[in-house]
Each structure stands twice: as C-alpha cells, then as structure tokens.
C-alpha cells in the first residue's frame, strides 16, 4: 500500500478519535465559524440576563401579592428598561454583527484578481445529491476535499430546486439558487472530516442530502486531486453500459451522461447516495438492489437487477478507486 493511500486514511483516523465527526455550530474549526460561535455565546449571556430580569419582576410580584397599593408609579421603569436600554443594546449588536463581523463571514469579492491562485470548487445542487467540480476535470459527488489552513472559495448553484450548502463547523450556510451563482469561503484550522447537509427543504429526500468536507494536508490534497482528475481505471462492463450509462458518466469511456453522479472514482468515496449509506461492497449491492427502499423518492429508479447482476455491478463500481 503506497504511503499516499495511507495518508488519505488520515481523516478516517481522525474520525476514529472523534473530532470533526459532528455537524455542530458549537465546535467551530475556522475563523468565521469561531466568530459566529463567539457572538452566540455573548448573545446567550445577554439574553439569559434579560430573561432573568423579567422573571425576577414577576416572581417579586408573586411574593408581594398580599400587599395592597393600587396604581403605584412605574412608567419611568418602562421607559428606561423598555426603550432606552434595549435601543442602546440593539444598536451595539447591529453594528458589531452586521457591519464588522459580517466581513469575515461573507465571501471574498467575485472579481478574479483576488482569487488568483486560490483553490476554488464548484458545487451544483441536485435532488438529492451534490455535484462537486474542480478546476481541471476532477469531478466527484457528495464529498469535497480542501487543503487545510487554505482559503477555498466554493461557487454554489442549483440545477433544479433551491438547496442550501451548510458545513456548520467551517462557515455559515449559503443557498443554492437557480437564479444566480453564490459564493462561500471554506477554511479549516485542522485537518479532518466535517459533515455538511442540505439546509433548505428541497423535496422528498431533503433528509438524506448530506456530504463530507475533508481538510487534508496540502500534499495529500494535491495527490487526491490529481487522481480524481484521471480517467477511469477500468472500462465499463456491458451491463453498466446497458443499465447505468443513460444517467451516469465514467470519464474516459463511452458513458458520458450527467443526470446522476459521476462514477469515475466512485470506489474511492466514503459514502453512497449522499451519506445515506457508508461505501462498501455490501452496501453498494444493497443500494443497487433497491434504491427506492434505501432512499424512497430518490431519482435513481429500481432497476430490477438479478442478484448476479447486482454483484457484478457492485464489484465493478467498487473497483473504480
């Protein structure tokens, strides 16, 4: 096993140790995500205090419920606590978050000059999976590899309905619109695997439209990218051509359709059907046997394959590393 292969296993080892295995906005792993999390903790503190004040007033009212004393004055309290204080607090919050913090979370300017040399990824949303395209001709699905500690601009766009691209531990979410191409910056402090998921309701299988972002050491990333750019290692079987090629592409062969995910290196991926199943020979067979049972409403139809066909196809696809 070449060392490169070992290095690609690094993320999985990290996964084993538990970090980066979640989708939590409270485990920020990038400057923008840190900024947002910090803001959250500040706002939580202030809110707790505010709630405590109100509850305090009400509890006090309960304790002094016996004492009579109609129409005691209180208007001044209403004006000070109800108008002056909140105006000051809210103006401060607005200025901090929407004038300063937002500069870190919004993407770099669109003009190419600022992007010269920067790594960029194009993500196209489909019901219910993610198409991932790199410069050159590397195309994959449902997993994005980025070099660690390097700003990466992700261009997102939708081919069908509105989706939303969201990796909480790395940055805020951004919608995939049919109307326009949006941008978001990905930056990972630490190498590892980060889970993302579609956040805008997009139809029957909105629940199973996840993806992984792998932050690899730059060298590993470059090797991965180079291998993904290569054409397929094995020519498609006749079975594949008859059953699958009307929707799926295998680069370097006659199968060139782009309805479903590009399968050129499907064997090298860690999940099937946008994180519905982990990728393995058994799972691949299960998926091919009855996609509509595994992921009801997915656009991949049941192909009614015989057990032999399933086994053959699965073995072929898994061989595409």
């Amino acid at each position: 096993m070449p060392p490169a292969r070992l290095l690609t296993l690094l993320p999985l080892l990290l996964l084993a140790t538990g970090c980066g295995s979640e989708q939590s906005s409270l485990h920020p792993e990038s400057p923008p995500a840190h900024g947002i999390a910090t803001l959250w903790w500040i706002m939580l503190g202030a809110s707790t205090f505010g709630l405590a004040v109100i509850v305090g007033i009400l509890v006090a009212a309960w304790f002094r419920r016996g004492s009579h004393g109609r129409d005691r004055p209180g208007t001044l309290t209403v004006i000070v606590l109800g108008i002056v204080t909140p105006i000051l607090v809210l103006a401060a919050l607005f200025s901090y978050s929407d004038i300063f913090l937002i500069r870190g979370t919004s993407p770099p300017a669109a003009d190419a000059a600022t992007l010269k040399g920067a790594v960029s990824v194009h993500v196209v949303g489909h019901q219910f999976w993610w198409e991932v395209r790199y410069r050159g001709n590397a195309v994959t699905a449902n997993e994005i590899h980025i070099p660690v500690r390097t700003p990466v601009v992700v261009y997102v766009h939708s081919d069908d309905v509105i989706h939303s691209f969201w990796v909480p531990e790395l940055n805020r979410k951004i919608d995939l619109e049919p109307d326009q191409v949006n941008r978001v910056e990905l930056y990972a402090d630490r190498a590892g695997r980060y889970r993302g998921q579609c956040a805008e309701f997009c139809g029957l299988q909105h629940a199973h439209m996840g993806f992984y972002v792998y932050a690899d050491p730059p060298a590993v990333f470059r090797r991965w990218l180079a291998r993904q750019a290569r054409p397929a290692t094995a020519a498609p079987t006749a079975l594949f051509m008859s059953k699958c090629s009307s929707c799926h592409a295998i680069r370097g062969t006659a199968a060139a359709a782009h309805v479903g995910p590009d399968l050129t290196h499907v064997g090298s991926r860690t999940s099937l059907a946008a994180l519905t199943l982990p990728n393995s020979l058994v799972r691949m067979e299960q998926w091919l046997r009855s996609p509509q049972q595994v992921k009801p409403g997915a656009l991949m139809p049941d192909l009614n394959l015989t057990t032999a066909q399933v086994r053959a196809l699965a073995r072929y696809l898994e061989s595409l590393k």
Partner: protein
Amino acid sequence: MTIRRLSLLQWIGFLVGGPVWFAEFLAGIGTSQAVCNPASGRWGIPHDAVQIGLMSFAAVCVLVALAASAIVFRETYDVEEQDAPPVGRVHFFAAASIGGNVIFFMIILLTGIATIVDRTCHQA
C-alpha cells in the same frame, strides 16, 4: 397655544414619522437592488450618494415630527391619559408619537450608515 394648533402639531407628530421612514426604507432597498441587479446595474445610479440623500432627508423629517410631538406633550403635560377629547386625545397621541418617532429615527440612522459603510453589492 390654541387647541386647534396643538391638534395640528399632534397630527404632524403622529402621521409624518411612519410614512417617511417606510418611504425611505423602500426607496433605499429599491436603489440598492437597482444598482446590484444585472440589467438595471448598467443605469449607473450612484448608490452611496442616493443613500446619503435619502437618509438625511428622512432623518430631518422624523426629527421635525419628533419635535412637534415633544412640544405638544410639554404643552399638555398636566392632562390625564383618559381626559375628554380633544385635549385628552391630543396628549395621548403626542405621548405615543414620541416613542414612535424615536424608533423610526434609530432605524433610519442604523440602516443608512450600514448600507453606506458596506461594500456596495457585495454578496452577504
């Protein structure tokens, strides 16, 4: 001051602030959308200049309304909330309008400054 004049001032204080804010609000959004959309972007509308104009005009109007309601409030300071109209009603609207105009002024200020300071048409 005569009750007639007080009443007039009170209506100015009550009716000017809101519509002016909302007009400025829609005009501001319209401007930024016109500047940032592909077709209308070519019309060459100067974003920040327009926004500054809108903000300052609206701010002045709301301050006038605020002053009007403040004056009426002071003139009718000893009137009770539930007193008979017209003076009771005048006092009521004046007190209410002060609160409203302060809020409108703050919105105009915050949004105006932010939209001018931000990088024009930069995707959020």
